[in-house]
C-alpha cells in the first residue's frame, strides 16, 4: 500500500464519506432536488441522463428533450406504477471537496417512518424539504423528530418551490422562522435554511439571480462545508470494538472487527465485555500490515499479549479509568430504550426476541412499555403495544448481561435490533437510553444444584414430550397411558394438559391466534421449569401453529424437546368428538375451533408420529423408545 500509516489514519478521521438522509413529503420536489445535485456534480452517467431526457411519468409537465431531474433517481418497477418512492435508495454524490456523499433517499409517506429511521440511522446530515406553497406540515415535524432521535446533528432545510411563491423574501422568512422554532426542540448542532427552486435550479448548485436578498450558502455549499466533529472530541470517545471473527493461522490468533469509537495503539489496554482485568494490545493490524494506531471506522485485527477467551460477539473496550470511567458500559440485563417498531406484527408483551447489536445476539424481552411518542407533537402517550412505524419508550431485559452504551455516546454499541425468533424478521430498532442498574440484583444466580443434579437423584433423563394434534386426536389418552406406564416404572413425571392449564394458569386467554401463541408460550416456559426440576414432562396441547411450536422448541436445548404428532384422520376425530366440540363448531357456536373454523398446521419434521387411531400400547411403546426408556 502506498500511503503511510499516519497519513491514512488522519484521512479516516477526516470522514472521507459523509452520509446524508434526504426527507420530504411526496411531491415536495425531493427527487428533482437530488437529481439536480447528482447531475450538477457529474455523479450520474450520461446514458441515465439521456433516459431522463426521453422518459416521462404520467402527469409530468416537463417537455421531452429537457432533463426531468426527478427521473434520475427513479427505481423499482413497482414504484414506477404507483409513481412514488417506497424504499430507501442510496446514491453517490461527488462533492467538490473530494469528499463522497452517500445520499439515502427516504420515502415521504407518513407510513414509512421506519424507512426514514433506517436512512437517518447512519446519516451525518439531513436535507429536509419544505414545499413553500404548502408550508410547514406534520411531516416536517415527523422528519425532524426521527432525524434527531437517530442522532443526526446537522440539518439543511431546503424551502423548495420558491419560484411558485414569486421568490418572496417575506414568505421565506416566515417559513424559515417556523422551521427554526420546530428544530429548537431538538438537540441539533446546526440548522441551515436555504430558499431553493429545485425545478429552476436556484440555490441548488448555483446562487439564485432571483433571490438577491439571500446571502447564505447554496444546498451544495452547505453539504460541502460540513465538517466532522473536531479530532479532540472524537478521541474523547473511549475505544470500542465488537469482535466479528477470530482469525487463526499457525501461531497467529487475532481478533478482527471494526473500531466503532475511539482509537487504539499497540500497548493500550482493553477490557473484554467491560469486565475482568485489562489486557495489553500487542499488535494493531490493518489489511495484513502492522500499524501504529487505528481509529473509528477502520477494520482492524488486534492481537493481545495475554491468552484470553474472546469470541465473536464480545466487545473490546477501553478500561474504566480517567474520562472513560463515566462511560464504561458495565454489562447489565435491563435497559431503558427507545424503539422504532418495524415489524408487520405488533409487539408482543413478554415474547422472547433476539437482540442483535454489532455481532452480539442474545434473547431479550420487552418488560414494560413506558409510552408511545407522537412523532408530530413529541408528546408521549400511554400504549399497550406498538405497531409498524410506532416510536416509543420501553424497558427491555436480556437473558445474559451485555455491555451496551447509551445511543448518544455511540450509535454502533448503543443501537440494537429486535429480531422475531421464528420469522427472523427485524421487528424493531432500539436505541439505548441507559442501563437500568437495579437489574444487577436480578442476574440469575448460578445455583449449585442444577438440572443434572436433580435428574441424577431421580435416576432419569428429563425430557419434554410435546404432543400436538387435532382436538380429539387422542393426545390426553396417550399422555395418560404413557404417564401411568412411566410412573409404574418408578420415574418422575408430569402431564401438562391443555384443558387443565386453561382453567388456571391461562384462564385469561381465549382462542385467537394471538392468545393461542401466548398459551403455547406459557406452557412451554412451565415445561421448561419442570424439565429443570428433573421431570419427564408430557405436554398435551392442540398447538395448531407451526410457528408457535417452533418458538416453544427454541426454548430448549437440542434433544430435550421432542415434538410428537398424534396423527388422527379428521373423520375419526369428528366421529369421536368426546367433548361435543365439533358438533358445536358445526352449529357455529364455536368460531375458532381448530380443524373447523381454524387451520391445523401439521408438523413438518416431528420427532415421533403416532397413529391416533391405532393401538394404544403400540403408541406408548413408541414413546418409551423415543425417551430411551427400556421396557
Amino acid at each position, binding site marked *: 500500500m502506498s500511503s503511510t500509516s499516519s497519513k491514512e489514519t488522519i*484521512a*479516516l478521521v477526516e470522514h472521507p464519506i459523509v452520509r446524508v438522509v434526504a426527507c420530504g413529503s411526496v411531491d415536495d420536489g425531493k427527487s428533482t432536488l437530488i437529481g439536480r445535485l447528482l447531475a450538477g456534480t457529474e455523479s450520474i452517467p450520461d446514458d441515465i441522463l439521456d433516459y431522463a431526457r426521453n422518459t416521462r411519468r404520467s402527469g409530468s409537465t416537463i417537455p421531452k428533450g429537457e432533463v426531468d431531474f426527478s427521473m434520475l433517481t427513479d427505481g423499482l418497477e413497482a414504484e414506477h406504477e404507483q409513481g412514488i418512492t417506497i424504499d430507501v*435508495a442510496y446514491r453517490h454524490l461527488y462533492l467538490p*471537496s473530494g469528499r463522497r456523499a452517500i445520499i439515502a*433517499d427516504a420515502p415521504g409517506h407518513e407510513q414509512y417512518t421506519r424507512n426514514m429511521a433506517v436512512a437517518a440511522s447512519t446519516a451525518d446530515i439531513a436535507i429536509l424539504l419544505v414545499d413553500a406553497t404548502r408550508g410547514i406540515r406534520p411531516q416536517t415535524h415527523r422528519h425532524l423528530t426521527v432525524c434527531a432521535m437517530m442522532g443526526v446533528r446537522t440539518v439543511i432545510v431546503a424551502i423548495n418551490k420558491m419560484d411558485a411563491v414569486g421568490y418572496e423574501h417575506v414568505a421565506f422568512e416566515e417559513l424559515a422562522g417556523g422551521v427554526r422554532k420546530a428544530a429548537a426542540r431538538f438537540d441539533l448542532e446546526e440548522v441551515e435554511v436555504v430558499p431553493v427552486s429545485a425545478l429552476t435550479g436556484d440555490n441548488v448548485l448555483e446562487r439564485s439571480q432571483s433571490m438577491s436578498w439571500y446571502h447564505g450558502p447554496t444546498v451544495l*455549499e452547505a453539504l460541502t462545508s460540513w465538517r466532522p466533529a473536531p479530532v479532540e472530541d472524537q478521541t474523547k470517545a473511549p475505544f470500542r470494538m465488537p469482535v466479528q471473527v477470530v482469525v487463526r493461522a499457525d501461531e497467529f490468533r487475532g481478533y478482527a472487527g471494526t473500531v*466503532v469509537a475511539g482509537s487504539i495503539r499497540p500497548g493500550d489496554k482493553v477490557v473484554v465485555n467491560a469486565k475482568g482485568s485489562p489486557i495489553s494490545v500487542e499488535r494493531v493490524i490493518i*489489511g495484513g500490515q502492522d500499524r501504529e494506531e487505528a481509529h473509528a471506522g477502520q*477494520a482492524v485485527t488486534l492481537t493481545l499479549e495475554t491468552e484470553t477467551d474472546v469470541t465473536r460477539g464480545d466487545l473490546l473496550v477501553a478500561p474504566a479509568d480517567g474520562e472513560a470511567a463515566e462511560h464504561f458500559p458495565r454489562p447489565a440485563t435491563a435497559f431503558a430504550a427507545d424503539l422504532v417498531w418495524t415489524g408487520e406484527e405488533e409487539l408482543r408483551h413478554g415474547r422472547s426476541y433476539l437482540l442483535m447489536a454489532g455481532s452480539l445476539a442474545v434473547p431479550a424481552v420487552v418488560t414494560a412499555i413506558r409510552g408511545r411518542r407522537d412523532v408530530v407533537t413529541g408528546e408521549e402517550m400511554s400504549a399497550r403495544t406498538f405497531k409498524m412505524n410506532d416510536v416509543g419508550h420501553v424497558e427491555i431485559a436480556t437473558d445474559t448481561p451485555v455491555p451496551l452504551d447509551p445511543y448518544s455516546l455511540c450509535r454502533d454499541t448503543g443501537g440494537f435490533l429486535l429480531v422475531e425468533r421464528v420469522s*427472523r424478521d427485524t421487528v424493531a430498532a432500539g436505541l439505548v437510553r441507559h442501563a437500568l442498574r437495579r437489574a444487577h440484583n436480578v442476574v440469575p444466580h448460578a445455583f449449585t444444584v442444577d438440572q443434572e443434579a436433580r435428574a441424577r437423584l431421580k435416576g432419569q433423563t428429563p425430557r419434554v414430550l410435546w404432543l400436538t394434534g387435532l382436538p380429539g386426536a387422542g393426545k390426553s389418552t396417550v399422555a395418560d397411558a404413557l404417564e401411568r406406564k412411566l410412573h409404574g416404572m418408578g420415574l418422575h413425571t408430569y402431564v401438562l394438559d391443555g384443558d387443565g392449564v386453561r382453567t388456571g394458569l391461562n384462564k385469561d386467554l381465549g382462542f385467537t391466534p394471538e392468545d393461542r401463541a401466548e398459551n403455547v408460550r406459557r406452557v412451554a416456559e412451565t415445561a421448561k421449569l419442570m424439565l429443570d426440576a428433573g421431570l419427564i414432562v408430557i405436554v398435551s396441547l392442540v398447538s395448531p401453529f407451526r410457528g408457535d411450536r417452533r418458538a416453544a422448541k427454541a426454548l430448549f436445548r437440542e434433544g430435550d424437546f421432542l415434538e410428537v404428532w398424534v396423527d388422527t384422520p379428521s373423520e375419526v376425530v369428528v366421529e369421536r368428538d368426546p367433548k361435543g366440540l365439533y358438533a358445536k363448531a358445526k352449529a357455529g357456536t364455536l368460531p375458532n375451533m381448530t380443524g373447523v373454523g381454524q387451520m391445523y398446521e401439521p408438523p413438518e419434521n416431528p420427532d415421533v408420529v403416532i397413529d391416533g387411531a391405532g393401538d394404544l400400547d403400540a403408541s406408548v411403546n413408541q414413546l418409551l423408545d423415543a425417551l430411551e426408556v427400556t421396557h
Partner: protein
Amino acid sequence: MSSSAETAIAPDAVLDALEAEAIHVFREAAGAFRRPVMLYSIGKDSSVLLHLAVKAFAPARVPFPVLHIDTTWKFREMIAFRDRMAREHNLDLKVHTNAEGVKEGVTPFTHGAHEYTRIMKTVALREALDHGGYDAAFGGARRDEERSRAKERVFSLREPGHRWEPRKQRPEFWRTANTQLADGQTMRVFPMSNWTELDVWRYIQREQIEVVPLYFSKERPVVERDGQLIMVDDDRYPLRDGEQPEMRSVRFRTLGCYPLTAAVESKADNLDDLLAEMLIDRRSERAGRLIDGEGGGSMESKKTEGYF
C-alpha cells in the same frame, strides 16, 4: 465556502473508507453464516472482491469456497485467468455448469439472450447454491451499476427458491445486520455496495490488483452488429452472410459471455489511460451488456427470478 486546499479529501481516503466497510461486511457474514460462498465471475469487481476477502482474513486463508458459474461461453482468457488465481491464492474453487442446459444445446443464438441467461446463469446459480448447501453468497454488485440497484441491501434476503421479494427486505440500521435466517431463506451479501466503477478502477490501480487483460485495449477480431462491437472469441460464433471479423483496437468495460458483451473502441492499453478515458466517457458500464438493454426495470424482474 467550498473546497479550499486544506479541506480537500484525497481519493485514497475515500478508498480506505470503502475498503474498511467492505471488510466489515465480509467478516460479519463469515462469522454469522454457517456455509458462505463467494461468487466469482472473474471480472474486475470479482478481482477486487477477492482482494478484499484476502485482506479481511489475513494472515489466515480465505475461509470460504469461491464459486464460478461457467456458462461455457465465457471469453477463453477469463477461464485461464480464473484457474491461475485459484492456484495463486490457494482458493477452494468450485465451478458449476448447468449440465441440462448444455445437453439441450442452449446457446445465446438458439434461445435468445434472455432465455439463455435464465437457463445458463440464473438456473445454474440456483442449482449450485442448492447443491452446495450455501446459506450465504457474496457478490460484487454495486449500487451504482443500475438504477434499480440503488435500493439493494448490503444483506439481501432470498426466500426459499432464491426468490427476491422487495417487501421482505430487511431494514438496515447502522453496521448491525440481521443475519438470522428462517427455514429455506438464504442471503446474498454485497460488500462493495457503495463503490462506484471509478472507485473499483482506482482501487485496482492503488493495490496493483491483477485483472483479465480483456479490460485493456488490444487488436481483437470483432464484428459490428446492431451498433455493438462483438468479439469473435472462437469458431462457435455464427457469422451472418457477408460478416467478416476485423481487427480493431478494443477493450471491455464489463466481462461476461463473449457473444453478449459489447466492446468499446479504445487505445487505452494500461490503467492510467483507462482511468483517463473513463473520466471522459461517462456512460454507465451496463450500456455494454446486451442483456440489460431492455429498459430500466429489466434487472429487477431478473432479480425476482433469482438472478444475482
